[in-house]
């Protein structure tokens, strides 16, 4: 039973200036993502990855087509679809523990009731020693882990991640990717993970959707048959390298094509 369905979705942004043309950010996008699948959206900058994610998150409405979650049209954001943003976006006036407790407290739980859970999720992302620190006292990677923890505590069946590790250095990035894989192996969720990094997509995903720009649309999808649980060693596999090569060619051809058109 498909969990997330996008049918003929179009997003057209009106021009911001008086006479500027409207921007067609997404055109005729179709997706069908089954429960517990880990999906990556791969594509160049500006191809509409964030726009598509925002549609599913409910921050944005399609100008045409429909977005369904469990066969219900999406009407606004909700705690069953957790979002990890490109920039951590944690609440700067709350400590780490308070940030993680934000979701449960909205549902009327008291501080004492959630304390144990908060510690548990801080522990899982390795931030327990920092529970009483403010986000400004954390590094970028730690802030990103915090933003993951505050979503995980809500236990959402769907996790939407918009280039969450894009701003991190290579080492931190690997640590974060493996952390995410480990968390996902433990309690499977439907994950849509946006990236423009082929290796990241192949390391994480069951299926990679390749997107193309102007207008943003889905070119193709590739299933990743690599065995789980995966870790960084998987990039030495022949299957991994073949897939990387073919995805690279696909993105390259598309880029060359749009460069010719433009």
């Amino acid at each position, binding site marked *: 039973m498909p969990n997330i369905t996008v049918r003929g979705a179009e997003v057209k942004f009106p021009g911001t200036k008086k006479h500027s043309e409207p921007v067609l950010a997404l055109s005729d996008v179709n997706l069908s993502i089954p429960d517990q699948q880990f999906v990556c959206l791969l594509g160049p900058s500006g191809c509409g990855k964030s726009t598509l994610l925002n549609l599913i*998150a*409910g*921050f944005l409405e399609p100008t045409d087509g429909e977005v369904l979650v469990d066969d219900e049209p999406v009407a*606004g*954001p*909700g*705690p069953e*679809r*957790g*979002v990890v*943003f490109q*920039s951590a*976006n*944690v*609440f*700067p*006036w709350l400590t780490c523990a308070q940030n993680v407790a*934000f*979701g449960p407290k*909205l*549902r009327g739980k008291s501080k004492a009731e959630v304390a144990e859970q908060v510690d548990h999720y801080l522990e899982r992302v390795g931030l327990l020693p920092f529970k009483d620190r*403010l*986000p*400004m006292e954390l590094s970028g990677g730690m802030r990103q882990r915090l*933003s993951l923890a*505050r*979503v995980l505590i*809500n236990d959402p069946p769907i996790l939407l991640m918009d280039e969450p590790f894009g701003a991190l250095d290579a080492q931190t990035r690997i640590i974060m990717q493996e952390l995410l894989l480990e968390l996902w192996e433990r309690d499977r969720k439907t994950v849509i993970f946006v990236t423009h990094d082929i290796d990241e997509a192949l390391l994480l995903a069951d299926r990679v959707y390749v997107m193309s720009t102007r207008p943003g649309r889905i070119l193709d999808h590739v299933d990743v048959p690599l065995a789980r649980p995966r870790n960084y060693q998987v990039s030495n596999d022949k299957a991994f390298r073949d897939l990387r090569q073919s995805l690279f060619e696909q993105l390259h051809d598309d880029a060359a094509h749009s460069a010719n058109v433009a």
Partner: protein
Amino acid sequence: MTGMTQRRSANSEAAIGNRTRAIATMSPGEARGQNKKLKRSGSMPWWQRFGLAVILPVLFVIVWQYVASTGSFGGGMLPTFTDSVEALRVWMFGQAGDSYFAGGWLASLGASALRVFSGFSIGAVLAITLGLFSGVSQNVRGMVDPFITILRPISVTAWVPMALIIFGIGYAPAIFLTALGTFFPVYVATLAGVRYSEGSLVHAARMLGANKRQTLLRVTLPATLPSIATGMRVAAGIAWTCVVVAEMLGAKSGLGYTLILAYNQFQFDYIAAAMASIGAAGYLTDKLIEQLIQRRLRWAMTTS
């Protein structure tokens, strides 16, 4: 100083919020460097800061004393610095009989402070509430903003006669005028802050499950606090101006009342004493608010 902010159109308010946010939370010390190390090496030792700060007041006092004692200004009626200090001493600590004003200082200060505090609180609470709703609701903004833009150019001084007609003499008109003077800068700062802080953090709250009311109280309000704090600091200065004007024309107590009474009774040294008291009270109020801001808004002190 607020005129600048007030004259901007609603469109540019978001940008102002951004800039004022930084100013609100920085003490002069902080403004010099973001982290501790920079701050230490870049800032001056206390005695140097103190030395610099007292140069102008000392010069001022010397010139004042000289000019007043030669009688070359104001037809010889200018009170000298030393006379004014003596007046302040009698006003503060004198026994009844020393002077009409003797021993009345604390009561005057208290009356003014009470009016400032009441008017400031009323004005700020109204402004923050209305500013928040204007910020998040286009309908409220569309209704409230034009009306406020019309009222804003009418100075508090221009409101005095009307306030006396409505409220009579006493505490009420002063509190009304102070609230009015407080309202505008706090409203503008709140609105600007809300519009600036809208967006990503609100999205984050919504996807974590917050409804509209929870988002307003738990995210928009705290995110707007640095901006509100800027508005409150500006407003505190204005509040002291308002209360003095109100007391000069429509009260029988307070520092402003003493000021005008001293004038009418030709006790000009008490005018200077009252002016100094007002300055000191305003200074202390500002320091108090700055302390509160620094304690509560530590999170806003970094640009990240």
